[in-house]
């Protein structure tokens, strides 16, 4: 044998009896559920009724227009993007405070994180809505933004925030989600900062960098690279979590879906369609982020 002999082939992976058995179980389970719904429940399926609420044919204009469910999906996406931006800002500040030497900073940030993480999201949202948004927003005048303001009546505003008449509603949901998710991003940021070894701090100090410069030039740039992947994951989590703000009547996908389900009485179809929409959105984002991460990892080499 010489060095040029090719290596022995890798053993092929094949299906075992156990695999086939498990497959069979899954298929049987699905079939049974379908049988129950079809024959025992005697449910009258009508997908078209629900699809009409995704896209609707406008007789007057003679074109397809988005209907409630698709509009809800867009609102959910807008909510998620804005809430992530603000949650990231909150998380960056609070996450840094978590690692600070100052006692007050650490107490504030720790209290924030623990408070949010140890209250059920639904409870937090009600507290937020009744005590904060319904008091603070009118005081700041946000509830009048839809009236007599020329700057809200343009396409850009629609793309960024949706219907101006629902802006206060949107803002309440967005701020609520941002505060809620900010606590989780705080922990991501803290972990990112703490993952930077002591040696980096010491090397920065040893050449006489001030604390501000040390953070800005040495610690944060390295931390951000470690934070981005979990932050992308948190963005997807936020999309799913955004469903709970439907409880305070924020007009996003889940809220509108309850309305559609009630109007059409097509409960199964509505929730299956909505589930599919969330899945497509979140899964395609997950695939995209995974792809970007791989590319970033390769380019770093």
């Amino acid at each position: 044998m010489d060095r040029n002999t090719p290596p022995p082939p890798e053993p092929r992976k094949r299906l075992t009896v156990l695999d086939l058995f498990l497959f069979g179980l899954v298929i049987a389970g699905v079939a049974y559920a379908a049988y129950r719904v079809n024959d025992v429940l005697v449910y009258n399926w009508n997908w078209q009724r629900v699809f009409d609420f995704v896209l609707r044919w406008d007789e007057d204009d003679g074109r397809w227009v988005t209907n409630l469910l698709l509009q809800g999906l867009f609102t959910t996406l807008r909510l998620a993007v804005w809430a992530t931006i603000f949650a990231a800002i909150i998380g960056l500040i609070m996450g840094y405070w978590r690692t600070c030497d100052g006692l007050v900073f650490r107490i504030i940030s720790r209290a924030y994180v623990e408070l949010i993480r140890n209250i059920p999201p639904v409870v937090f949202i009600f507290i937020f809505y009744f005590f904060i948004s319904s008091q603070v927003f009118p005081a700041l005048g946000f509830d009048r933004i839809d009236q007599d303001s020329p700057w809200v009546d343009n396409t850009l505003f629609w793309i960024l925030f949706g219907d101006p008449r629902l802006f206060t509603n949107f803002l309440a949901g967005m701020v609520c989600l941002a505060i809620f998710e900010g606590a989780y991003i705080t922990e991501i940021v803290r972990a990112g900062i703490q993952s930077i070894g002591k040696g980096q701090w010491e090397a920065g100090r040893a050449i006489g960098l001030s604390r501000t410069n040390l953070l800005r030039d040495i610690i944060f740039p390295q931390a951000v690279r470690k934070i981005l992947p979990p932050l992308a994951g948190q963005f997807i989590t936020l999309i799913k979590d955004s469903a709970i703000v439907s409880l305070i009547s924020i007009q996003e996908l889940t809220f509108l879906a309850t309305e559609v389900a009630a109007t059409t009485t097509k409960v199964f179809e509505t929730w299956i369609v909505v589930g599919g929409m969330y899945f497509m959105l979140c899964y395609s984002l997950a695939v995209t982020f995974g792809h970007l991460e791989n590319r970033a990892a390769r380019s770093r080499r």
Partner: protein
Amino acid sequence: MTKPLVEIQGLCKWYGDFSALFDINLSVAEGERVVICGPSGSGKSTLIRCVNQLETHQRGSITVDGHEVRPEMKGIEEIRRSVGMVFQSFNLFPHMTVVDNLTIGPIRNLGMSKSLAREIAMKYLQRVRIAEQADKYPSQLSGGQQQRVAIARALCMKPRVMLFDEPTSALDPEMIAGVLDVMVELAEEGMTMIVVTHEMGFARKVADRVVFMDEGEVVEVDTPDVFFGAPKTERAQLFLSQLLGH
């Protein structure tokens, strides 16, 4: 006698209840090369890390170039700029190119322009014989090259004194010589150096004095000839016989 550049008097440090350093007295004159050796855990690294206050001391005083350094003091950055430090694990900034590692200090601390900082950085990279790697990232260099970059980075701040904390301990054997050569050159140019190392050949060649530490105390201070030839204390004899035994 000239005024000492680094003066340590009655220095004590505890980690909790553990006494890490006890009553250390040491003064280093300008241009002097001091090698600190001793068994691991003897407090060598802790001692030199106190000089630029990466570790804080609880008792005694440390003076660098006439300024006393104290824990929590304002303006410690000012003093750190005049004290270069080289670490065992290099601690280069991995997200910056080699030359950026060198220029960040002068640009941020001294307000130097980018082009001037780069010019000076290239000069030092040439001195440590690594100029052709200037635009690579630290992870693309060997350990020995990284440590030479770390030395150049410290030199860029034009320090009055250089601290070396076991600079060759994390290196593969074939990389050690290159780093030691750079350090010997630096010594020949008259740089004040405090070096924690196990490289006895280096100590013999370069050191003006050898400080032997054990269990947080200075046990013996000698010229290299005396220390390696006829150490006075039993502990130093034991240490040397273990080190040179194989």
